[in-house]
């Protein structure tokens, strides 16, 4: 874990593997936004980026007790505050 914690907001696609964030919002303009909410990517949810696939995309996430895989273009709809 890094010591200098970056509290700036970014999208889930930008979080580096191994880091963690808290969901702030899901961008409504993405057609997938509603699906993100169904999958539990709701505000206040803690989510960890476990790894990226060997070719860089998709990414593996851990949240709410399960593992989810998303393409980075879709993960871009989730705005997070990095916490670790």
């Amino acid at each position, binding site marked *: 874990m890094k010591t200098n914690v970056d509290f700036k907001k970014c999208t889930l696609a930008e979080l580096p593997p191994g880091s963690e964030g808290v969901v702030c919002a899901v961008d409504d303009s993405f057609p997938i936004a509603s699906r993100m909410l*169904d999958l539990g990517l709701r505000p206040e949810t803690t989510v960890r980026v476990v790894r990226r696939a060997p070719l860089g995309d998709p990414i593996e996430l851990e949240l709410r007790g399960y593992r989810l*895989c998303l393409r980075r273009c879709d993960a871009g709809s989730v705005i997070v505050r990095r916490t670790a």
Partner: protein
Amino acid sequence: MSEAAAPGPLRLGLLGNPNSGKTTLFNALTGLRARVGNYPGVTVERREADIDLDGRRAVVIDLPGTYSLEPLSEDEAIVSRVLAGDVAEVPPPDALVVVADACSLERSLAFVGDIVRRGLPTCLVLTMLDELHARGGRLDRERLEAALGIPVIEVIGHRGIGIDRLRALLPAPETWSTPPLPPPAERDERARWADSVLSHVLSTRPGRHRLTDAIDRVVLHPMLGVALFVVVMTCFFQLIFAWASPLMDAIDGGVAVLGEAARAGLPPGLLADFVVDGVIAGVGSVVIFLPQIVLLFALLHLLEDVGYMARAAFVVDRVMGWVGLEGRAFVALLSSYACAVPGIMATRTISDRRDRLLTILVAPLMSCSARLPVYAILIAAFVPPALVLGFVPLRGVVLGLLYLLGIVVAVIAAIVIRKTLVRGPTADFVMELPPYRVPSLRNVGLRVYDRSKDFAWKAGTIIFAMSIVVWALGYFPRSSEVLDRYESKREELAANLEGDELEEARSRLDNEERGALLRASALGRMGRAIEPVVRPLGWDWRIGMAVLAAFPAREVVVSTLGIVYDLGEEGAEQEERLVTRIRNTKWPDGSRIFTVPVALSLMVFFALCCQCGATVATIRRETNSWRWAIFAFTYLTVLAYVAALLTYQVGTALA
């Protein structure tokens, strides 16, 4: 909504997120009694089973796994439509059983709330409790029951624990407790409601699945993961090939033995010919697919239940994304190299309808094993056994190029179809990576059984009908002129020859007669009729006819060419003679029919054309529409024709 006095069986709807253990529970409740079909008008699979619950008849409806009742995909739309009683021929359920994985209840509770608030009698089944406990999680069932106001039952489906209690509860949904206050209807409020319920019932959240973490460090490792992917997929493919072919040979042999037995027991004539060459061969043409279907689905479901299939899709998704497909399409396309039929059936794992359709439409371009005998004959006849660069056999190169042609055309077709017919945003690739689990052989077995039964009845009947039609076209009309001519020739032989010489001459005459009859049949006339169409490809009417006869099953072209060139249809010796005969057939002006450009154009045609009734029937079955089946057939045939035309014309111009 549910009247206890209502006649007819109790309808129980089974709902849950994907991977919640819903199918395991369905199987535990119903065993082998599932009926598989489609919901009217859509491609979504429909599974129901009749069961007896302490004397009360019930129908368990296995609704598709879904994350939400908001209709985003076709699967989800069907779930909410069934609940609303909005699907023709499908009465709405009287009561609902919601299945939720206890480890990911944090995700699914809002979904559970959305179902509960709709007011049907509902109970919640929690699964994977053994896993929850192993991961150190603690969940208070009684508190959950109190908070939701509905019965909550803990079940370990694959070990049958809790099933008896569930069965005792199910017959009387009238008596189930109902929530005093339904969960909020508004989505954000419901999410907050779910989180607050969870804070009361989930005293300890489950930790990470340590074993899964450890395995994934290898399986999803940037280098090792890719290597493992290649190894697993190679073995997967090899096993289907290696294990299926002896079984398929055995079926072929069995069909031949059965045919001989039937012929021996029946008086010679139309009935015997119909039973042996029509019915028995037709049934054989369906059964021959079963070894590959059974093997493919056994391996596929085994890998899926272990948890590897999702990882494989994760590793390869990027590559498939380049042509507008998703990771889960890979296995379906790989399987299509063995046979497009199970390959197309394997697309059921792809959740997005458009992705699935696209995968189905390009799957027949993967060079299946039935094309090999065709390539083998033509390559043996026209490609010299030379070496390229001193060590690479030229014949192997040609074969490799034919496989490559299928891939290249598939990539182009996928891109074009994606931009035209199945347009729309690239589907969201949303997939869970479930923890690694010990697979349940019972579950795998049941699913393989379901798939095979479904193929045999739904696609098999169409395949069977097509092979009967083609048999009839090649059999009728029986030219009495030909029959009389050969009868008198036989008598002539019997008068002049004896012993082995007579036998040999007779069998030669039989083969000639079969050829003459075929040439005089409806199929032969059709071959002549289409000669102007196939002439630009360099083919004569006999090749055209053999290609026509091969539309239900492409490998038939070899035996049809054998018959039309008066060689009979069986055996390796025949194959050698066929190669010679093909080389030597001539046009009326004395020039050879088969030249290298003709052979190439024929091979290119076979590489691309959808000459497989079983594939068309399976596309019809899987898309639930003749429209897509006919489209696939048409576009592939046109593509094959144009490519063969180009091959011949360019080849002739160069030569």
